């Protein structure tokens, strides 16, 4: 039987609309917080700028994924058709000049590899999937997938203080400010 102790995850504050959240996010950014996030039921466009986020680096992964697909398809076609077992059919040459016939497969594998790279890079960058998260312990956080707009500031942020952060969140217009605690099994 393990006893559980609580560890503070951070504060969660609700905002009434996307506009209110946007303005509050700018203030949190300007106050210099680092470990914080906005939680919204749908992607609010422009919020990245208000939070001071950089553009996602995902396209770089996809570029190299696509390149891998392209090279894979070319080698698959070239090595098998020209290298190890040339098949002389359709009056097409069995050398590099048959490459136009390889284009469809090269295109398809480029798309296939890019698509899966995009999926896995997205999951990697988001650190998903994960089974649980301290925020799910909150009594109001389930509304984030319905109609709730939240800002959460984590306790591991250097600027976090039990009183100061709470006051700050209420000052920028947050409602229902809640201290979110996660269960931690005592070992």
């Amino acid at each position, binding site marked *: 039987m393990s006893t559980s102790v609580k560890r503070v995850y951070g504060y969660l504050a609700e905002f009434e609309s996307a506009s209110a959240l946007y303005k509050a996010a700018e203030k949190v950014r300007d106050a210099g917080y680092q470990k914080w996030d906005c939680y919204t039921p749908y*992607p609010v466009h422009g919020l990245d700028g208000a939070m001071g*986020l950089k553009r996602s680096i*995902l396209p770089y992964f996809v570029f190299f994924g696509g390149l891998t697909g392209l090279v894979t398809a070319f080698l*698959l076609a070239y090595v098998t058709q020209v290298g190890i077992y040339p098949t002389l059919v*359709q009056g097409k040459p069995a050398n590099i000049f048959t490459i136009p016939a390889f284009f469809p*497969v090269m295109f398809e594998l480029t798309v296939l590899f890019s698509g899966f790279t*995009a999926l896995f890079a*997205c999951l990697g960058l988001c650190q998903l999937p994960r089974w649980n998260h301290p925020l*799910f312990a909150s009594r109001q956080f389930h*509304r984030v997938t319905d109609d709730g707009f939240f800002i959460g500031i984590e306790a591991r942020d250097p600027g976090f203080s039990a009183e100061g952060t709470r006051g700050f969140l209420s000052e920028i217009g947050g409602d229902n400010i809640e201290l979110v605690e996660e269960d931690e099994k005592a070992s």
Partner: protein
Amino acid sequence: MADTATKTTSEASAPREVKLPVLEREKLVLNKRSYHWITERVCGIIENKQPAIWWALFIPSLIMAVVGVGGGLIYLVTTGVGVWGNTNRVMWGWPIVNFVFWIGIGHAGTLISAILFLTRQNWRTSINRAAEAMTIFAVICAGIFPAFHVGRVWMAWYLAPIPNANAIWQNFKSPLLWDVFAVSTYFSISLVFWFLGMVPDLATIRDRCKRGLKKVLYGIFSLGWRGSNRHWSHYEMTYLILAALSTPLVLSVHSVVSFDFATSIVPGWHTTIFPPYFVAGAIFGGFAMVLTIMIPARFFYGLGDMITMKHIDNMAKIILLTGTIVGYAYLMELFVAFYSGAKYEMAAFTYRITGPYWWAYVAMMSCNVLSPQLFWFKWCRENLWVVMGVCMAVNAGMWFERFVIIVTTLARDFMPANWKYYNASWVDMGLFLGTIGLFTALFLLFLRFLPCINIAEVKWAKEESDAHYDDKKGHPDEGTVVESAYQHELEKGTAEV
């Protein structure tokens, strides 16, 4: 003139300032529904008991699928492909007609989810999920036919790039192999796109479930999504990239399917117009299928405030446009056959129109080219019975198009001794009906278990979802926006639904 305009639009403003009325865009969510209402309405479909019509459709379609596809394939495999009506000349027959038909249906789903996303057509938000589901299910139905058409289905692994026992590899110069790559890539990427788009909505359902198996399953598939903006940032980039990848992909898939025909030297097939003609036809047929399944779903589940008459109007216009492109392609094909002076090409087309398959040609022309012309009239686009009727005609017409292309051409090839009238067998028909059952059953299961409308994106499409919505108050244009008369009229019509 300026003075009178000022007086009529806003009397309070300074005399010099002219405010001209601005016509508002049609709203995408009617009746000022709240975010919570959207969540409730879409999740309610999954959480509440299904209406009787759901069972009334599901049970027959399940029986059709089991008997038609299950029974048909067992009979086919245990007996041999001779049970199909395919003959020495018409080796492709119904199975390939059905393959091209189903794969074409899928294209509208990708068009709505990818191309309309890139072109920022925000009305796509409430129909993209169901259209993508339709894509997946249509490709599943399509895949059955070529897999079994190979003859000995246990040798279907020859399609994969693996050398056979004699170390011979697949022929990468063959359009049939391109097809394998194109269709399997299309299926995989469509599945990724569909699933990724669904993650936030699965999280919505997860958050509404009580503890139990349902919560665990929706929890697993929602990947622990929590609406974090740091995640949304990567997520939206992924979505954009997938849309940008799917756009050329969808165009390539039906182009590659058309290469199966166009790269041959058969008169009637060997034409450069095939890729664009097939792609336009696919989008055309796909949109008709989207409307065929969404209009009843909209009615029975009360989704009229999200899938508005504006959506139906837009789709009807796309059907009109693509139908007209298809009509142009039909006529251009005839013109080129005449103008090229190619004797065999001309003979092939004369045979198509006046030969024993004239009925299929007439069905194709009237269903695909004439019936969508009704959509020039606003009254027809607003009357759901007319819309459904035209869509049904288009669904049938697109099947006939593939029949005309495949069967009439193959039935009279270069060897007159082989000319014979083609008849499909009852196994052909049973399998085709079976895939209709399979498609319907899968779609009904989708309605039952998954969010059929993209909840997050519909919320996003509401005007107050804009981060700068509050700032618009006090904007110089305030007060000059007038409600679009067209929508006002429609809102009255949908209020009862």
